[in-house]
């Protein structure tokens, strides 16, 4: 089990809980309770019921025949884009809100970049009748207007983060500050496999349903639970964590994480953390981080607001460090072209995040009998504006 988390909350040399004392009781409460709660039969039952009847799971595993023809391999798409609210994010928010209720919390806060995690949080808060505040960078609020209004319709208060570059990193800072100021009645639903231990492990747990289903669906389709490749985009890395989860210990399954290269790795506008980052500490965990020589965090760039984060989860840093997973990247243009290609060949307009995963298919050295699962983490509805602005279709 060399890829799982250790008793101190580390994946190899990455992870931990680097938090100010004011956050310690909150995080410690979670650490001491999360496993016993989420592994209880009663929790599992409620979680599974909601995933089935509310989220619409299991999501299909779709054999994309025309793409398979084109890339000369068996390409399967894991259709997380068909989840309620349009992305995999809701798997985690359902899990965390059930946990928060059992910890006696009355209020929920969250950060969001593109707004998908914010919408998923606002949705489960409406479902459970809990008060919700979502922090969102002011720039992202302007870029993702429809998601802001979606959250408001759902009854959530959206608060603009006006520090820094006013994007995801700054929204996360503001959410952490809010949590410091409201330590007892509030649970912070982090949207990715980032943050202090136990968040990375907890979020990966809730997203692991993705790979659990892939195994069952592949067994049914081809009589073998193990694909040759699993491909997923990585911002913080929650959909990749879920898609990799049950394959990590099976080393014959190639795991491929795809980061956003933005305008190119060699430019100053990129978000490809494994290519450009060094070990560092942000938002409570030690991981790979894009930063200056002086240890100041660099503002990343990607056309996709969901991949626009300067770090990656510690689990992914460890998979990269041990070379268990391969990390590739795709530029804005490569991702947009792949998004159009998927739209034209399979009739599926993907989220631009997920289009990054599609974009590396030509870069893999595939054999005709290789089974490739691409995790299609979200749908493209929220990105229509970006597709329109890009215009090349």
């Amino acid at each position, binding site marked *: 089990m060399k890829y799982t988390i250790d008793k101190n909350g580390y994946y190899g040399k990455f992870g931990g*809980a*680097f938090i*100010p004392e*004011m956050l310690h009781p909150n995080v410690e409460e979670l650490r001491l309770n999360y496993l016993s709660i989420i592994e209880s039969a009663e929790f599992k039952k409620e979680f599974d019921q909601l995933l089935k009847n509310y989220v619409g799971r299991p999501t299909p595993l779709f054999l994309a025949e025309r793409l398979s023809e084109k890339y000369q391999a068996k390409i399967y798409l894991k259709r997380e884009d068909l989840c309620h609210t349009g992305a995999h994010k809701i798997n985690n928010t359902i899990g965390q809100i059930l946990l928060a209720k059992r910890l006696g919390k009355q209020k929920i806060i969250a950060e969001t970049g593109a707004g998908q995690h914010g919408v998923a949080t606002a949705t489960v808060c409406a479902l459970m009748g809990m008060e919700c505040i979502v922090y969102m960078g002011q720039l992202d609020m302007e870029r993702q207007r429809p998601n802001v209004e979606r959250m408001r319709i759902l009854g959530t208060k959206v608060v603009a983060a006006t520090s820094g570059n006013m994007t995801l990193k700054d929204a996360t800072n503001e959410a952490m*500050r809010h949590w*410091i*100021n409201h330590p007892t009645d509030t649970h912070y639903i982090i949207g990715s496999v980032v943050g202090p231990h136990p968040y990375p492990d907890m979020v990966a747990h809730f997203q692991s349903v993705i790979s659990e289903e892939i195994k069952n669906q592949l067994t049914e389709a081809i009589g073998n639970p193990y694909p040759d490749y699993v491909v997923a985009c990585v911002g913080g890395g929650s959909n990749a964590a879920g898609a990799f989860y049950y394959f990590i210990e099976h080393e014959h399954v190639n795991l491929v994480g795809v980061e956003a290269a933005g305008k190119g790795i060699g430019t100053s506008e990129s978000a490809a953390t494994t290519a450009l980052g060094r070990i560092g500490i942000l938002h409570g965990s030690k991981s790979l*981080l894009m930063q200056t*020589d*002086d240890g100041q965090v660099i503002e990343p760039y990607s056309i996709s607001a969901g991949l626009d984060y300067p770090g990656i989860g510690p689990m992914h840093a460890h998979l990269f460090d041990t070379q268990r997973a391969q990390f590739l990247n795709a530029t804005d243009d490569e991702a947009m072209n792949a998004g159009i290609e998927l739209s034209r060949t399979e009739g599926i307009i993907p989220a631009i995040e997920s289009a990054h995963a599609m974009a590396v298919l030509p870069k893999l050295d595939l054999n005709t009998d290789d089974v490739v699962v691409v995790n299609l983490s979200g749908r493209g509805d929220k990105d229509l504006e970006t597709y329109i602005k890009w215009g090349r279709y």
Partner: protein
Amino acid sequence: MNRIKELFGQNKKNILSVFYTAGFPNLNDTVSIAVDLEKAGVEMIEIGIPFSDPVADGPVIQQSNKAALDNGMNLKLLLSQVREIRKTVKLPIILMGYLNPVLQYGVEKFCNEARESGIDGLILPDLPLREYETEYKSFFEANNLLNVFLISPTTSEQRIRTIDRLSDGFIYAVSASSTTGTKNGFSLEQEQYFKKLCNLNLKNPLLIGFGISNRETFLKACEHSTGAIVGSAFITLLKESHSLTSGIHDFVKSLKG
């Protein structure tokens, strides 16, 4: 002898420690502010290492961090400024900041150079106890640098006792569960918290910080502790002062009387 230990060895009351961000309002003000603070009669100086993502800080200190980074502040420059400060200033000096810039500099190298430039202690709020004990403690001790821990109203008594055992100088008691610079005046609940801390009879003296902005809050904090720390209120003064020297003098006088 470490200057912090010396200060607390004198059994003084009403110790005033002042925090400011290095490189703010102007890059080279770090030195003159320290000199002015000593002249004005404070007992200890805490210099903040600016960071791009100061999650435990409220807007005032956030903005000073950003301005300092825009001014070109970095750790190497800060250490050279401390050497400059040490040409005249005798007060204990603490550097306070988030762990990442220190990690990138190299913790051992940083500890060596901090000592060499005249630093007496460090406050790294996001450095966990376990990692301090297992990875970094030896570097601190080899350089006679004190590591100052924070406690907050939500810290359990058991954990306070652990922190007391690991501390050797003083403990930084945060007055409320909050980021810096958010409150004005202490509630009854906060006063009860101070009393509770006082009754724990810890081996280390306590300095109370967060929410100290004027003479009233300073004295209230000092009733239950050895002294208090002023940060955001001082940074606001630096931002608004036309003359730093007279502004600092008046500010310290208004607190200490």
